[in-house]
């Protein structure tokens, strides 16, 4: 959505220029440079690699999780409906893509979007109660759907392979087999860029505005011609579509999908990403995911430093380090809720607002 923050002297001369995804040429350039850097990230020239294998796996992880988080933000942040069952849709997308590929021989290139559409259908069905119930009651209904789908994963051998899980083929484009994380990185990056743009476009067009209207004041939204039931259910469909894409990318990345991977904890983590990133912010979903993925990394880094010092010789600290890491993640979420309830996206806007009048700060 358009922000009220433009640098002084930045005037728009056409409606087209006033409705762009990125509010200024500078911010668009910033995003393009970001994508260009990411394109360069997996390159290996001679023996030199831009980023280590480990960083590539982290970035891939951020990519597919961020796509799912984007979907959850459409549901929770933009439409104002809480969902505690997002990981089940993520899982459904993963199994569906593997199933379509294994059983019907659908090439992975097509099975990912098809799996997402299938997940959308499931999401629409799960979303039907949303037409009737709101708030905490809806949260409980989505919790039920989480457990029902998890149970379905465990029992539906034909679909998921049951307790042994299912294998997923590696990604291939028209006969060309993608090999290794460094190549798969580009697949995830392409999907992330496309999904990001789709979400941003949605939010600046008719149905996106309708979703926000339903969140902000459903009674007047209805009088404005917004069919509440339709949009409440549709929002579940949209969020499942994104979760489905994310899940399918996850499946073909690990090439193995286990039924235990999609529990309520992952659903909560998705909620954490969206809340930390900023409810109702497209970019926030991305920032929140980066934060949630990198926080444990930063913690182990800090722990390793601590271990190298004299403190590392104190047995109680060494034993507690693993727990410290977990506790820090929880602490970070709590601190965010207290000090930055609008999320990282809000912090980013504050930083931009500071530069708004640069170099004249008055």
């Amino acid at each position, binding site marked *: 959505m358009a922000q009220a923050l433009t640098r002084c002297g930045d005037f728009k001369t056409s409606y087209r220029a006033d409705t762009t995804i990125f509010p200024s040429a500078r911010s668009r350039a910033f995003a393009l440079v970001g994508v260009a850097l990411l394109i360069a990230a997996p390159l290996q020239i001679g023996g030199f690699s831009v980023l280590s294998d480990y960083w590539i796996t982290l970035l891939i992880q951020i990519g597919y999780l961020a796509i799912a988080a984007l979907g959850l933000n459409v549901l929770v942040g933009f439409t104002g409906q809480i969902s505690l069952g997002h990981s089940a849709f993520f899982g459904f997308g993963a199994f569906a893509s593997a199933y379509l590929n294994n059983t019907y021989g659908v090439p992975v290139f097509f099975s990912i979007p098809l799996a997402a559409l299938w997940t959308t259908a499931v999401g629409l069905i799960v979303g039907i109660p949303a037409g009737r119930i709101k708030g905490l009651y809806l949260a409980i209904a989505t919790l039920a759907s989480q457990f029902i789908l998890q149970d379905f994963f465990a029992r539906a051998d034909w679909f998921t392979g049951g307790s042994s899980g299912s294998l997923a083929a590696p990604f291939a484009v028209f006969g060309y087999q993608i090999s290794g994380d460094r190549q798969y990185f580009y697949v995830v990056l392409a999907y992330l860029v496309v999904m990001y743009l789709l979400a941003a476009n949605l939010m600046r067009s008719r149905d996106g505005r309708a979703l926000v209207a339903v969140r902000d004041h459903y009674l007047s939204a*209805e009088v404005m011609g917004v069919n509440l039931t339709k949009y409440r259910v549709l929002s579940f469909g949209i969020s499942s579509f994104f979760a489905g894409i994310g899940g399918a990318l996850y499946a073909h990345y690990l090439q193995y999908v286990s039924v235990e991977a999609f529990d309520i904890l992952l659903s909560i983590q998705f909620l954490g990403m969206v809340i930390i990133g900023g409810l109702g912010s497209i970019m926030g979903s991305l920032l929140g995911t980066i934060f949630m993925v990198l926080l444990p990394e930063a913690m182990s880094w800090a722990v390793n430093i601590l271990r190298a010092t004299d403190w590392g010789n104190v047995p109680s600290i060494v034993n507690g380090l693993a727990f410290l890491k977990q506790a820090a993640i929880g602490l970070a979420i709590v601190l965010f809720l207290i000090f930055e309830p609008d999320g990282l996206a809000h912090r980013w806007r504050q930083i931009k607002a500071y530069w708004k009048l640069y170099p004249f700060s008055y």
Partner: protein
Amino acid sequence: MTGESPLLEVREVSLSFRGVRALSHVTFHVGRGELFSIIGPNGAGKTSMLNCISGRYTPTEGRVVIDGRDVTAMKPSARAGLGIGRTFQNLALFNHMTVLDNIMVGRHHLLRNNVATGSLYWFVGAQREELAHRRQVEEIIDFLEITPIRKAIAGTLPYGLRKRVELARAVALKPHLLLLDEPMAGMNLEEKEDMARYINDLNAEWGMTVVMIEHDMAVVVDISDRVLVLDFGRKIAEGEPDAVMADADVKKAYLGVDAEDDRAAPAAAAQ
């Protein structure tokens, strides 16, 4: 001003909430191009009447007919498509959206792009459509003199401006019938004058039929073509403003049984 057939017909409408009878057998009609006011003491059922017309409530008895079409059982969201716009007594803006987005929501039933075409934006004409409607919305913004605040977040605006944004949102629907629930409540004199001017212009120049609930009798008498008076859910008078103000029942409703003083009625109502 009444055309061939009235734009809005309310026939014998009653509304009960369990024991409470909010409206009983109210009948009136509003002609095309009319500026029609509904007045009455607090709790008289004015807003309930408006809610029956806009679809929030379904009348227990009676029919609501708009443009010759019985809409009694129609959902509020479907009524927007018939060209019914409304504002609310207590502000009902989308507080976290910009003023512009608020008003664009008013275009909802006129826009054709959907979830898929909206997401693809550039390739399937959604952009063209959005920009065309943006142009028309800008005309409304211009008319209501809210140009400087169009990028502001609606929830951060002062009361008078929010009321104006709400009017803009209702106008964006391209309504034939504009329902206004106390458009001037809580405003100072200057803001009231502006609002009266907008309503007059929308009625006379933009050709919108207006049904307005208002407590400020001076404004009601000044700009209304006809007035309906409700008291305890019943219609007690209907007609030209001056005639209605002189009506004995109306004075009684506003002032109690011993009403003598003509000037007291508007004063009491203005409270």
